[in-house]
């Protein structure tokens, strides 16, 4: 019976022409399928690239926001807005608070450059307790590398509180005049006098956790300072007014709790949680620790 069927079905074919036509159709289908697949792959590639681009942009934005946030927190307490206005304001060197040759700050009103607007600054005896803010956390390494900073040991030769008037909004800070005794890093020389903007006024009555160390500075104190080097982008904006921080001082402390190793009779005062690698001692020990950290940072 199978033989009967075999003969019958053999008659169906397919013959060589049908074989050729089927293969040709298959080849067409194969080419179309490959084109489809390539199209799909291209779509996937484009999608992956687009997603990656969006991620990079978002990452960039978040990094920029984080930087902005850190920088905003780095300026003295009380500011409400701060921005980089390099393009918006004329590029002028800061005028800096007037000083005497003997390391004193002259009791005159501080003239501001055109980089500042709708703001005035004057020396004052008035103080106002600053509002405590949470400190932006930095790793120990970042404490030595986050900003463009100067590192030096020096002696406070003068201290004056200042009142800043941002279009009617008052804020109080202090300027410290410091004689540089040893340079650890920065464009300074021994014997130079530099002005540092402190993030709070100095007063025995003031005690705010974030400002403790800076607020307790007194004339004659010796310390290792690690201030930010202000540039033309260092601006403080508040209530529609803008202050170029360079107009006040070439250096500033990011907050009043860190960035200073203050020599006292009981040993060096500093913020232990910010510098876990330093275990106290004399100012010389602090100097050695800072130098070592700077060396490590430069090696990285």
């Amino acid at each position, binding site marked *: *019976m*199978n*033989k*009967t*069927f*075999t*003969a*019958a*079905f053999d*008659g*169906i*074919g*397919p*013959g060589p*022409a*049908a*074989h050729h*036509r*089927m*293969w040709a*159709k*298959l080849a067409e*289908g*194969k080419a179309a*399928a*490959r084109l*489809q697949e390539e199209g799909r792959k291209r779509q996937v590639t484009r999608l992956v690239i687009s997603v990656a681009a969006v991620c990079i942009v978002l990452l960039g934005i978040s990094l920029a926001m984080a930087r902005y946030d850190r920088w905003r927190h780095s300026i003295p307490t009380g500011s409400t807005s701060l921005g980089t206005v390099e393009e918006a304001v004329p590029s002028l060197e800061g005028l800096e608070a007037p000083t005497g040759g003997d390391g004193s700050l002259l009791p005159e009103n501080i003239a501001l450059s055109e980089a500042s607007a709708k703001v005035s600054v004057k020396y004052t005896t008035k103080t106002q307790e600053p509002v405590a803010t949470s400190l932006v956390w930095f790793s120990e390494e970042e404490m030595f590398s986050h900003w463009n900073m100067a590192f030096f040991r020096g002696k406070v030769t003068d201290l004056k509180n200042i009142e800043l008037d941002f279009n009617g909004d008052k804020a109080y800070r202090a300027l410290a005049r410091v004689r540089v005794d040893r340079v650890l890093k920065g464009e300074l020389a021994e014997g130079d006098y530099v002005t540092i903007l402190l993030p709070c006024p100095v007063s025995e009555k003031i005690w705010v956790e974030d400002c403790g160390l800076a607020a307790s500075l007194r004339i004659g104190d010796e310390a290792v300072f690690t201030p930010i080097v202000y540039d033309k982008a260092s601006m403080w904006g508040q209530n529609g007014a803008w202050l170029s921080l360079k107009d006040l001082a070439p250096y500033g402390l990011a907050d009043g709790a860190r960035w200073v190793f203050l020599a006292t009779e009981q040993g060096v005062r500093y913020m232990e949680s910010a510098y876990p690698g330093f275990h106290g001692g004399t100012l010389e020990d602090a100097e050695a620790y800072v130098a070592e950290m700077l060396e490590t940072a430069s090696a990285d």
Partner: protein
Amino acid sequence: MGEQIEREDDLLRACFERNYRTLYRICYVYLKNGYDAEDAAAEAFIRLIQKKPRFSSPEQESAWLIRTSINLCLDELRRRKRRPDSLEQIGEPAGEPELQPNEVLQAVMELPEKYRVLVYLHYYEGYTAAELARALKKPASTLRNQLMDARQLLKKRLGDELDE
């Protein structure tokens, strides 16, 4: 990349040579038309390229192709029912080259649709009921009964010729 495409082409060619006759004939017994059978059989191979199913043996691959071609034929038959002016009703196109009908083939083609492919696969391709059950995903007992029914019908139609 080019090497991989070449390799895929070789595998496809081998698969085509192994299966095209079977698929064509299966499609033919369903569609009763050489050109439609070519289209349906080629389409089964194209589905294979598009879906890229994984097989553990050439037999599994053949079974998949048979099932796919049967489904394609059933789709085509359904389409024909909806289209009154289908090619089948118009008649075989002129120049259809391969068909050499004889009485046995004629009798098989007159069997109900569900028997035709079984008769072909069992008596011509030599598939056992168990293999057919795996390939067509139907119970072997059902297929055995259907084959017996088909054989009875053919006997009725062909008489002594079938016993030769």
